[in-house]
């Protein structure tokens, strides 16, 4: 397998660096692949833009940042505006339907889904939107096994939050099962 690049983007405090860390750790420690995770964020502990990049490969990973992104998750309008241009032709863009109103045109598949709403209403806590997103990505790309993600998740979350986080992960996986591509007739560039 060549490089596979996943970028999780949004605002500081949404936990996207943690989600990227879990995805990469799952691939590297439990699925026998190579993985590198890097991040980009501002000095603020909340707010500002934040992103996490996960590169997964069966070969050595030299450059640790994104070249052409296979999957972009964007939980804010700002992040989709900033990073949509990095998605490779035929790649995947996942946006939160509540926070992202305008989707830039491009040759990628679009999933517009209730990531944050699922965390808030179905799981019961908006702070686990990152883990819903993790389950969603895992379900959509099927590159890292759910089993590996569960193992990595378990070691990276505070004690006492396991049940909440595992429910969030399941909610994300279910979201992936029900997901269908969003085709916006106004976006003529979409080829998928």
């Amino acid at each position, binding site marked *: 397998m060549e490089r596979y690049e996943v970028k999780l983007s949004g605002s500081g405090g949404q936990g996207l660096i943690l989600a990227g*860390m879990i995805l*990469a*750790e799952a691939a*590297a*420690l439990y699925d026998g692949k*190579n*993985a*590198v*995770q*890097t*991040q*980009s*964020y*501002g*000095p603020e502990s909340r707010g500002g833009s934040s992103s996490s990049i996960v590169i997964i490969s069966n070969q050595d*990973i*030299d*450059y*640790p*940042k994104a*070249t052409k992104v296979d999957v972009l998750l964007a939980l804010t309008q700002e992040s989709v505006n900033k990073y949509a241009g990095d998605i490779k032709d035929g790649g995947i863009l996942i946006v939160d339907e509540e926070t992202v109103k305008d989707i830039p045109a491009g040759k990628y598949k679009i999933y517009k889904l209730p990531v944050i709403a699922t965390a808030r209403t179905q799981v019961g806590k908006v702070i686990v939107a990152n883990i819903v997103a993790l389950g969603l990505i895992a379900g959509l790309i099927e590159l890292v096994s759910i089993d590996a993600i569960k193992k*990595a998740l378990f070691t990276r979350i505070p004690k006492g939050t396991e049940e909440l986080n595992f429910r969030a992960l399941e909610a994300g996986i279910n979201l992936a099962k029900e997901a269908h591509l969003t085709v916006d007739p106004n976006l003529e560039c979409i080829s998928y």
Partner: protein
Amino acid sequence: MEKEKFLQGNEAFAEGALYAGCNFFAGYPISPSSEIAEYMAYELPRRKGVFIEMEDEIASMGAVIGASLAGAKAMTATSGPGFSLKQEHIGFACITEVPCVIVDVMRGGPSTGTPTGPAQGDVMQARWGTHGDHPAVAIAPSTVEECFYEAVRAFNISEKYRNPVILLIDEVVGHMREKIRIPKPGEIEIINRRRPNEAYDDYLPYKPDLGGVPNIANFGTGYRFHITGLSHDWSGFPTNDPKRIGELIQRLTKKVEKGEDEILRWEEFMLEDAETAVVAYGSVARSAKFAVKCARNAGKKVGLLKLITIWPFPVKPLKRLAEHARKVIIPEMNLGQIVLEVERVIGGKADVIPINRVDTELISPDEILVKL
């Protein structure tokens, strides 16, 4: 106790320091180095070590020197602004020959600059940040695994040569996570400082021994002696004798020069027939390797010299590549620091082309590829 972990460069460095026997950390948290302090604050008390959060970076460096003089394997970690503050004490550690390890996780500067963005702007500061002629040892890892192994090596070098060792980790490497296998105890050699065996009354703390390195006693072991930042003779007391002063300053530099075979480390990748060579270090070396592989796939004769030790500057591999390379490319996240050393060594035998970036973004493989 072999184990695989998925760690940040900063965390792997802390693991390596603990493996080397580090039992004292004094510091003041600062992005992007704070994870090292965090890791040590958690681990050291559990291993009967000491972690102190000091009031500032100057005091941290003072505490590190004091602890080392009392026999501890001591370190601190900081970033550019703190590294600037530590310079006076680093000079003190050089002239008093106190083993210690200083990590500078480089961010955008000058001043407070860009706390969370990578840079490689402190390369010359690591060499000449403290005043006066002095030896400098600086190491720039580019992988998480190297952060671990170079941490062990840094402690070993500082103990053996009794000189501060500086780690120049850039933000990308410090915060990047990769898989790492932690070696079993005993798998890597650990070097500890030599101890004196003279009678207490005959003891001269600064009398040169093996390789010109004196066997300075740890305080509290029965030897009475004096430590000063002033130029001193073998007794450790200040001297104004030009002969003694000259001998001291020459010896400090020479003891490190004599150890270069052990201190210097680099990696050569596809350089044998390279007509174009990239010289890079830290995270940029990863971009460079990616670019070199792409260019090789396109049939171009290119290679990479990855510097791991930066100071003393590895002259030998550069001289070797200059024998057949016609073009040498130096990508750095600064406005041209190591390129000056490369130009000095190459001496006009090849075209030297710098690639510079100071917007706190990692240089991409594409930016290097277009020059290959």
